C-alpha cells in the first residue's frame, strides 16, 4: 500500500497497467482457462472424505432380504398402473396400509403457462401417495424422504416395488429415530413441488433432513448413477455424495456420476480427458439451472437431496435389486444417525469423478482471473477519462473533448437496453395467444419464436438509441458508457458466480472478451459478427451442441436447432413452474448488459 501512497510510484504503476493493459488481459484470460482445465487433473484435486461424524464412524450392517418380493410388487404395480391408466392410487394406499404405514394422498392440479411439448402436458392433474413410517417414540420433529416417481409407460416400476419392499422391511425395525416418508409422486417435479411447498394437505412429517429419489427401470442393473444438480445449480452437501460412494464401495456396486465411471489412469491423456468430460458435464448441467432429477426442488428448502438412477447397460457384471435395497438401507440407517443437519462438508464443489472433488476455494480463482480483466479494463478507461486530453499542436484545447458527456447519453442506452430486456422477459408469454391466432404455430413455438424475435430486434437498438439522443455521441461518451458497462458486467458476473459458479464462468468466458475489446473504432462488420457469436443466445446454442458432444450423443445441425428451441422453452417453463432464475437473469440483466457493448460498437 506504500506503493500507492507514493504519488510517483503510483503513477508508475498506473502507467505500467495502462501500457501493458492488453497483454495482461490476454495473459489473465489464458491463465483463467488453464486454471479451470487444471481442475480436472487428479493430482490437483482432493479425495472425497466423510466429514459428518455421525455418518462416518458408525458401522451399519445391511440385512434387506426381499429383493425378489420387491420385484413382484413392482410387477403388480405395473399391472395396476396399466389398468388404472395412470397412478393406481387405491392399490398404493392399500398396499402401504398393509405395510403398516400412515397413508395420505394429495391431489394437485396445475396449469402450465404454455404446453410442454417434451412431456406433452398442459393442464396437469395428479395425485401423490405417501406413507409415513412413524419412528417409535419420536415426537415427529424430523423426517427422511424416499421417493419414486410414477411415470407413464413401462419405466420405474421396479423403483416403486423396491420402495414398497423397503417400507415393509423398515417398518419392522425398532431403531428409527426419524420418520420416513415413502412417496410415490406423479408428474415428476410438478408432483414433487405440490408435495413440498407447504400447504394444508402437503407431505408433512416434521422437518425433512434428507431426501433421495429413486429411479429404477430394470430387474438387474450394471451401475448406479448419482445426480446432484438441483434448481438454480444448487448442490446437496457433499457428504450425501460421499455417503453414496462409501456404500457403493462397501457393497460392491458400480457407481457413476454424470453416467461416467471412474478411471484410474489419470496420468494418461484419455484418463484426463475423461475427467474433463465428467467435470464439464457437471458444469453444463449446473449452469442450466434446472433440476436434473426429482430431488431438485428439495434443495431450496435446505433439504439435502439427490437422485439415484439404476442403469442397465451391456456390461457383464450385474447387480440385483436386493443389493440396491441394501445400499439404500445402509444410507438411510446412517442418515437416521444424524444428530444435526448435514452441514459439515462442502456445499459448493465440482466433481471430476465420484471420488474426487474441487472445492470452491480451488475453482474460484479461475473465475477471478477472468473477472480481473474487467477491472483492469475499467481502470484503463478511468485513467483515460481522468488524464487531461492531449493539447493539439497549436496549444488550443479541443473544446468538444473537454466537455464531459451528458448524463443522458449514458442513461439513455442503459434504460433502453433494459426495457428491451423487460420485453424479452414478458412478451413471449403475453403474446402467445395472439401469435397462435395470427400465425400457423403452436403455443410453445409461439413463445420460443417470440423470444428469439425480441432478442433479434434488440440488435437494431443502437440506431434507435441515437435517434433519441439529442446530439452526436462523443469520444468521452462511449468511454463513460463502456466504463459503466464493464463495471456492471463485473458485478453481475461476480454475483452470478457466487450463486451458480458454472453459469457465471460460462458467461464470463464469452462476455469478458467482448467487454475487453469492443470500441467504436474496431472494424464494424467483423466485430459485429464476433459480438453476435459471443452473445448469450449463441452461447446457449453452442452449449447445446457441446453438451450433446460430451454425452457422446452428437447431433446434426437440424436436430441441434430443434433441441435449442426446446431448451429455450424448457428454461422459460422452469422459471414459471419452479422459480428457476436463469431465464430472468439472462433476459433482465445479462442480455441488456451485452446490448450496451453492442451499443458501444455502433457509437456515432
Amino acid at each position, binding site marked *: *500500500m506504500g506503493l500507492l501512497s507514493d504519488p510517483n510510484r503510483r503513477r508508475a504503476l498506473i502507467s505500467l497497467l495502462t501500457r501493458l493493459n492488453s497483454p495482461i488481459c490476454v495473459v489473465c484470460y489464458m491463465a483463467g482457462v488453464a486454471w479451470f482445465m487444471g481442475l480436472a487433473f487428479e493430482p490437483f484435486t482432493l479425495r472425497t472424505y466423510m466429514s459428518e461424524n455421525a455418518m462416518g464412524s458408525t458401522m451399519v450392517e445391511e440385512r434387506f432380504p426381499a429383493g425378489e418380493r420387491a420385484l413382484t410388487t413392482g410387477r403388480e404395480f405395473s399391472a395396476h398402473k396399466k389398468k388404472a391408466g395412470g397412478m393406481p392410487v387405491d392399490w398404493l394406499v392399500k398396499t402401504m396400509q398393509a405395510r403398516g404405514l400412515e397413508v395420505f394422498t394429495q391431489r394437485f392440479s396445475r396449469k402450465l403457462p404454455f404446453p410442454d411439448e417434451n412431456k406433452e402436458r398442459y393442464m396437469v392433474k395428479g395425485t401423490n401417495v405417501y406413507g409415513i413410517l412413524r419412528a417409535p*417414540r*419420536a*415426537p*415427529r420433529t424430523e423426517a427422511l424422504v424416499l421417493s419414486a416417481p410414477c411415470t407413464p409407460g413401462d419405466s420405474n416400476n421396479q423403483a416403486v416395488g423396491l420402495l414398497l419392499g423397503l417400507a415393509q422391511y423398515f417398518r419392522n*425395525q425398532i431403531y428409527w429415530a426419524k420418520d420416513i416418508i415413502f412417496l410415490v409422486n406423479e408428474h415428476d417435479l410438478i408432483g414433487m413441488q405440490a408435495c413440498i411447498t407447504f400447504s394444508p394437505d402437503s407431505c408433512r412429517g416434521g422437518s425433512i433432513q434428507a431426501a433421495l429419489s429413486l429411479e429404477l427401470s430394470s430387474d438387474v442393473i450394471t451401475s448406479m448413477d448419482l445426480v446432484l444438480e438441483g434448481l438454480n445449480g444448487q448442490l446437496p452437501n457433499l457428504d450425501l455424495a460421499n455417503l453414496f460412494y462409501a456404500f457403493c464401495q462397501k457393497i460392491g456396486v458400480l457407481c457413476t456420476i454424470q453416467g461416467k465411471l471412474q478411471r484410474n489412469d489419470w496420468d494418461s491423456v484419455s484418463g484426463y480427458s475423461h475427467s474433463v468430460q465428467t467435470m464439464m458435464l457437471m458444469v453444463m448441467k449446473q449452469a442450466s439451472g434446472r433440476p436434473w432429477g426429482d430431488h431438485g426442488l428439495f434443495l431450496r428448502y435446505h433439504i439435502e437431496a439427490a437422485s439415484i438412477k439404476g442403469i442397465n447397460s451391456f456390461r457383464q457384471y450385474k447387480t440385483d435389486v436386493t443389493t440396491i435395497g441394501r445400499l439404500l438401507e445402509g444410507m438411510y440407517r446412517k442418515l437416521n444417525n444424524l444428530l*444435526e443437519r448435514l452441514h459439515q462438508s462442502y456445499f459448493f464443489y465440482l466433481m471430476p469423478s465420484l471420488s474426487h472433488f474441487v472445492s470452491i476455494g480451488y475453482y474460484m480463482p479461475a473465475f477471478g482471473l477472468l473477472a480481473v480483466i474487467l477491472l483492469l479494463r475499467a481502470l484503463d478507461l478511468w485513467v483515460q477519462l481522468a488524464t487531461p486530453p492531449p493539447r493539439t499542436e497549436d496549444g488550443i484545447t479541443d473544446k468538444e473533448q473537454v466537455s464531459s458527456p451528458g448524463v443522458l447519453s449514458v442513461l439513455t442506452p442503459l434504460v433502453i437496453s433494459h426495457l428491451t430486456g423487460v420485453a424479452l422477459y414478458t412478451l413471449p408469454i403475453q403474446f402467445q395467444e395472439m401469435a397462435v391466432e395470427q400465425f400457423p404455430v403452436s403455443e410453445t413455438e409461439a413463445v420460443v419464436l417470440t423470444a428469439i424475435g425480441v432478442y433479434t430486434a434488440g440488435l437494431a437498438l443502437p440506431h434507435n438509441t441515437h435517434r433519441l439522443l439529442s446530439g452526436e455521441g462523443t469520444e468521452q461518451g462511449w468511454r463513460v458508457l463502456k466504463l459503466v458497462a464493464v463495471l456492471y458486467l463485473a458485478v453481475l458476473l461476480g454475483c452470478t458466480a457466487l450463486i451458480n459458479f458454472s453459469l457465471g464462468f460460462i458467461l464470463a468466458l464469452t462476455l469478458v472478451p467482448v467487454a475487453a475489446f469492443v470500441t467504436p473504432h474496431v472494424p464494424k462488420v467483423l466485430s459485429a459478427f464476433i459480438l453476435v457469436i459471443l452473445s448469450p443466445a449463441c452461447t446457449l446454442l453452442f452449449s447445446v451442441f457441446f453438451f450433446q458432444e460430451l454425452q457422446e450423443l452428437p447431433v446434426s445441425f437440424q436436430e441441434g436447432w430443434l433441441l435449442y428451441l426446446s431448451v429455450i422453452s424448457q428454461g422459460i417453463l422452469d422459471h414459471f413452474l419452479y422459480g428457476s432464475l436463469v431465464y430472468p437473469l439472462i433476459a433482465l440483466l445479462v442480455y441488456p448488459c451485452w446490448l450496451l457493448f453492442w451499443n458501444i460498437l455502433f457509437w456515432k
Partner: protein
Amino acid sequence: PSLYLGSISFIIGLSSPGNPKDDFQEELVIRPLHSGDIYASFQFRTVWETDFMRGNKVSHYRLFPKSLGQVISKFSVRELHISFTQGYWRTMQWGQPFQPSPPGAELWVWFQDSVTDVDGTWKELTNVLSGIFCASLNFIDSTNTVQPSASFKPLGIGNETDHRFLRYATLPREIVCTENLTPWKKLLPCGSKAGLAVLLKSEKLFHSSFHSQAVHIRPVCQDWQCKTTSWELRQTLNVVFDLHNSAQGKREWSLFKMFSRTLTEACPLASSSKIYIDITDNPQGEQFEVSPATPLLSQAVVLGDRRTFSVYDLTQQITFGTVRSLNLLIRWKSSEGDMLRPLLHAERYVAGYGLQTGEIHTLMYNNHPYRSFPVLLLDSVPWYLRLYIHTLTVTSKGKDNKPSYIHYQPSKDRLRPHLLEMLVQLPPNSVTEVTVQFERALLKWTEYTPDPNHGFYVGSSVISSLVPSIVAMDTNSTRERPLFSSFFPCKEESSYFVRVYTEPLLVNLPTPDFSMPYNVICLTCTVVAVGYGSLYNLLTRSFQIEEPSPGLAKRIANIIRKMRGVPPL
C-alpha cells in the same frame, strides 16, 4: 420372641385407628386399537385424609410417598401435574388417550394463595422435582415458563382461579428413559415388587411406540359433604405397543408378550386391584378373542363414549385360576387398520424457506357432523422466534374466524416467551387454520446449543375443549334404555373435556459455523489492519508536494526582499 411380636402388633394397632385413613388402588386398562397396536394404561391412586395446607406439619407417612408429601408442604403446592413422554400420541390411529400429554416433559403447578414469591418458589420446586425424577426439569426457567390465563384450570377442589398462582412449562427436548421410570416406580407403595407394577419392566416399556408416565397431585373431597379435604396422588403410565415391532406382525397379544411377566397377585396394600379390557367394539367376539374369559363386565362413559369393559379382579384368587398366574391373551380375528376420525384433532408445522422468517401453521379439525364447539388454544413460543402478531390469522372454511378471546403476552428477549391464548369457535366438519409469521433471532454465540444439535424446539400447542359427546350424538337410540331417560341429553354426558397436544416444532436458527471464528478473526484483522487502513488513508488524504523548509540565510533574504517590496525567492 413373644415380646417382639407383641411390639409389632402394638405398632400396627396404634397406626390403624389413630391416624388419618389412606387408601391405595391400582388398575390397568387395556384397549386393543384398530391399527392392531395395543394400548395399556396403568393408574395407581393413593388417597390420604390429611391436610398439607397452611403450613400444617405432616410427619407420619404410610402409603403416600414422603418425598412428594414434603414437596407439597414445603412449597405450598395446591396442585401438581408432571408428565414425561417419549413419542407422540397418534390421535388419527389410536383415538383419544385417557391422559393426554405432550412429547417431552410437562409441568404445571397451582400454588396456594399464601405463597408470596411465586417465581422463587417455582424455581426451587423445579429443581427439587428434577432431583426426585432424575430429569432435566432444572432447565425450566423464566424463558420457558408461562402463566396461562384460561387453559389450565385446577382439577381439584378450590375456587382459587387467579392465574398468578399458576405456572406452566414444557421441555420438548426431554428424553425419557429408565432413569426416569425407576424413581417413579419407587413412589408406589409396593414398589415394583407386587401387584400390577410387576409388569413395569423397562426393557419392554421402552420397546414401544409411545411411552408416557405422569404424576398428578390434587386435593379432593373426603366425602359428599366436602367439609374436609383429602389429598390424591395419581400415578399414571400409558404405553402403546407396536404390532409390527413388538409382535413381529402376529396379531396376538398377551401380558407376557407385552411385559415379559405374568401376574400372580395384587399389591397386598391395595384396596382394589383390577384389569379392564375394552371390549366395546367386540360385543360378540367377532373382532378379537380374550382368554381367559371373565363374567364380570363394567360399563362407563369414557371420553364421551359408552364403553364396555371386561373386568379381572386381582384381589379374587379365582382370577388366577389353577395355574396361579394370569396371562391375558388377546387374539385378533379381523385385520383392518383404517384411519379414525376423532372429533377433535390438531396438527402444526412450520412453513417457508430460508433462515430469516417463517410461518407457524396450526390446523384444528372439527370432525363433528353438525355441532360447532369452542376450543382454547394455548401457544407458548420461545423468545428467539419473534412472532409478528399482526400477521395472526384464523380462518375456517376459507372465511375469517374471529376469536372471541385473545390473551397475548409478548416475549422479552432472554426473559420470557410469547404466550398466546385464544378462544376459537370451530364450525362443524371443518379445518381451522391459525397462522402467524415469525422472524428468527440471531443468538449470542454462547446461547447456541452445543455443537451437534437437531435444531431449536418449540413446545406443543395445547388445545383444550369441551367436545360434544358421542353418546349425546346418538339421538336415535335403539339401546335398551327407558324412553323417559332419553329425550333430553343429560348434562354430564352431553360434552366431555379433551386436551389435544400438537407436535413440537423443530426450527433451525441461523447458526454460525463455529469452527470458523479463528479463520474469520485472522482474516478480518488482516483486512482491517492492512487493506482497510491504507486504503482509507489513500482515499481521505490529499497528497501535496511539500517544499523543504528554507534555510536561515534564505529566510533572512526573504525578509529583506519583503521589506523592499520585491517578490520572495
